[in-house]
């Protein structure tokens, strides 16, 4: 529980200026939720940790690496190419008796769904913890799905932390539960827990070290269908026993009896918000409030208590009605009836409205304005993707542009992408568009697919193999900026650096593309717009040619957020001449944050602070009014 650390006394360490708990070797640190989870994994003796970056889960890995070093714990850590691979790698390590864990965002669990579902039946040996970060809102995701419901579907227990400190303590609980039942356990933090920072009590690493010892058990690890009914029954029995465990009976903060037969049930960060609101409204200690820490399987005795002991029940949870559905009681107010909003994040302001209604609180009608006029995100100044997008849309004004997930989804602002579905989908979508149009026997619009390098490794390769095999015809531009930029510049297999900074074996995109059977391949720096456009036209000719197929162009230029790469890049000084007529072509079609419109002069103007000096805009202005003055090209 996150309030416990405050029962201790503090002593100041003169040397380091840090606060230390005087009772043990523990100390207080300000940790982000994801860092607290990483710390918890290392403290619990986790031996193998695998992940694929994705907001809001990306910061667990760097924390694991940092704390493993700090606490002198040798571990295998890896950024796997995708969540399925990460999951399977960590699961096998658990078969040997070692503790292992995997972290991903909620849609990553869709990718890892196949190994997840079966892992419930077959179980694990060493503690196996699956950290799945949900994104109610959503802020940075393609859905706001609730992984607790996924856990229910998979028949895997799930813990729901309400704060960074609690997320860390739940890691220990998850490992313990996982080992006791030989069952994977999910920890489901949400964005507001992952990206909250809080003072967290940190301990030394536990002296848990297992020598790998995989015990062959074909009936379990191979589990042909004849074994599965028995494994399924054993799984159900495990879940029944967990739902009887007293330690997972929801925590009650009791009322004083002034609101009899009335209670509020909450979990995750919604509990923190609800608790604080009740405190502010003067209802804490008046009405019974329960915190559910294990939403699935929900404690059986708790379900009975709610069904028979209360007349009015309100459930506040994110994002789907998981606790509510298990209560299976018509009197429960929650998401099914729309009493609590069914979509979006349950912000304190929204929960306040629900509580006012439920508790029948008289309030002055205070109209609070909602934030408006927020600025949309955009590709960085100097971003190589912008140059590639500009080349694509100016070459193929009637094209269809399937794209994918990453920074380059912001190509939407430039109207240079038409679809974005899930990791790797764009290549198969390119093929699908082709086959659909080809059926009509008429002219087929140019199809230009864009995908990032990391996304290509993640899930693009099978789509490319299939497209080549099925004789699809389209252009594929791989936006290779040598990093996973959106989530904080994690390395890719091509760049060749492992998660902990050691060199790995490089895997080259060009080799992969050729091995997929692609017969047209070019690589070009998109900063050289003219050459890039030339390659696009060649690619189009190949696609339409008698023996056409998939044409691949790698758009190669490092991310401008890579400080080292930026240093080796030529920097041009850009000026705008009086020939600028203020047509705004550069602002509307190129949308570089460094080009602004001077309302007084009615001309484009370069914001020198923002400009990286890439020089691409020189080739964008139709009147050549934007030009390079220094470091001539």
């Amino acid at each position, binding site marked *: 529980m*996150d309030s416990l650390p*405050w029962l201790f006394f*503090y002593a100041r360490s003169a040397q380091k*200026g840090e*606060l230390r708990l005087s009772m043990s070797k523990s100390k*207080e*640190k*300000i940790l982000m939720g994801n860092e607290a989870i990483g710390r918890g994994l290392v403290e619990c003796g986790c031996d193998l940790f695998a992940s694929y970056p994705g*907001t*809001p889960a*990306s*910061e667990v890995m760097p924390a694991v690496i940092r704390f493993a070093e700090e606490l002198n714990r040798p571990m295998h850590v890896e950024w796997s190419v995708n969540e399925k691979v990460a999951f399977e790698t960590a699961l096998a390590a658990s078969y040997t008796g070692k503790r292992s864990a995997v972290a991903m965002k909620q849609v990553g669990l869709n990718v890892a769904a196949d190994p997840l579902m079966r892992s419930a039946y077959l179980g694990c040996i060493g503690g196996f913890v699956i950290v799945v970060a949900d994104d109610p809102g959503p*802020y*940075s995701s393609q859905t706001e799905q609730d992984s607790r419901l996924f856990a229910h579907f998979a028949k895997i227990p799930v813990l729901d932390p*309400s*704060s*960074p400190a609690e997320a860390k303590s739940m890691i220990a609980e998850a490992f313990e539960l996982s080992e006791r039942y030989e069952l994977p356990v999910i920890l489901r933090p949400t964005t*507001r*827990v992952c*990206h*909250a*920072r*809080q*003072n967290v009590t940190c301990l030394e690493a536990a002296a848990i070290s297992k020598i790998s010892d995989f015990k062959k058990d074909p009936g379990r690890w191979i589990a042909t269908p004849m074994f599965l009914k028995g494994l399924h029954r054993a799984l159900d029995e495990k879940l029944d026993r967990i739902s009887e465990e007293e330690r997972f009976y929801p925590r009650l903060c009791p009322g004083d009896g002034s609101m009899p037969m009335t209670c509020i049930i909450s979990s995750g*960060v919604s509990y*923190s*918000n609800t*608790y*604080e*609101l009740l405190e502010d409204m003067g209802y804490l200690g008046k009405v019974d409030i329960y915190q559910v820490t294990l939403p699935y399987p929900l404690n059986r005795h708790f379900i009975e208590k709610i069904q028979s002991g209360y007349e009015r029940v309100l459930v506040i949870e994110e994002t789907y009605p998981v606790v509510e559905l298990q209560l299976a009681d018509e009197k429960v107010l929650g998401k099914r009836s729309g009493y609590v909003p069914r979509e979006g994040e349950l*912000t*304190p*302001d929204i929960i*306040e409205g629900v509580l006012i209604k439920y508790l029948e609180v008289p309030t002055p009608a*205070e109209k*609070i*304005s*909602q*934030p*408006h*006029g*927020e*600025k*949309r*995100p*955009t*590709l*960085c100044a100097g971003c190589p993707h912008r140059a590639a997008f500009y080349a694509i849309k100016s070459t193929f004004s009637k094209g269809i542009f399937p794209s994918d997930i990453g*920074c380059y*989804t*912001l190509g939407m602002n430039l109207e240079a992408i038409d679809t974005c579905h899930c990791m790797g989908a764009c290549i198969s979508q390119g093929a699908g568009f082709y086959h659909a149009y080809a059926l009509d026997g008429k002219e087929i619009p140019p199809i230009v697919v864009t995908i990032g390098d990391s996304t290509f490794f993640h899930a693009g390769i099978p789509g490319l193999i299939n497209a080549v095999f099925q004789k699809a015809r389209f252009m594929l531009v791989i936006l290779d900026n040598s990093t996973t930029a*959106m*989530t904080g510049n994690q390395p890719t297999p091509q760049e060749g650096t492992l998660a902990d900074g050691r060199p790995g074996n490089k895997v080259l995109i060009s080799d992969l593309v050729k091995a997929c059977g692609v017969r047209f391949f070019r690589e070009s720096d998109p900063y050289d717009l003219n050459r890039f456009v030339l390659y696009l036209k060649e690619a189009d000719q190949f696609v339409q040619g008698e023996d056409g197929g998939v044409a691949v162009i790698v758009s190669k230029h490092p991310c401008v957020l890579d400080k080292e790469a930026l240093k080796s890049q030529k920097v041009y000084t850009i000026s705008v001449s009086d020939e600028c007529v203020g047509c705004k072509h550069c602002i509307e079609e190129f949308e570089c*944050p460094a080009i602004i419109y001077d309302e007084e002069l009615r001309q484009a103007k370069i914001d020198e*602070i923002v400009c990286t000096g890439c020089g691409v805009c020189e080739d964008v202005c139709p009147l050549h009014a934007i030009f390079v003055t220094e470091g001539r090209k």
Partner: protein
Amino acid sequence: MKQQIILSGTGGQGILFITRVLAEAAILEGREVITSETHGMAMRGGTVLSHVKIGSFKSPLIRKGRADVGLFFKKENVAIHESYIGKSGLKFVNTNILGNYHCLDATTIAHDMGAVVVMNLVLLGYAVGKGGLFCGPDLLRRAIKKISNPKHTNLNMKGFEEGLARKES
């Protein structure tokens, strides 16, 4: 003393860093702290908002009308997020345009120092100089030193001191 602070601006302005400085300062003084910040796509130049709550809070989020202090790293953001500021709350805004708030053109000051990136610390220095924050400048100096990349500590401190020196403006 409990204090709720919002930090509003756009991705790339160093708002996460100031969020961390405030949190570290709180823990250096032995207080509880919980913060919330924006990550991911919004950081690509989009609007970002950090919440910092010093004292015994459970929720990482600040409700509308409850913030004691707002640091606005961009003038345009006052219109977007001022609804978070309470009736007696203080607003510190990075601008030279006067309004119903304390203002300082931190961007120009940082630019003149030759380091536009320390604009965030200039505004922080200004706010603490005005007595707007839960702690004094010394605690923030210690927090900045503790979490700065050693290569940037001096520059960060200089930016902070520049802002602090403008408390009369």
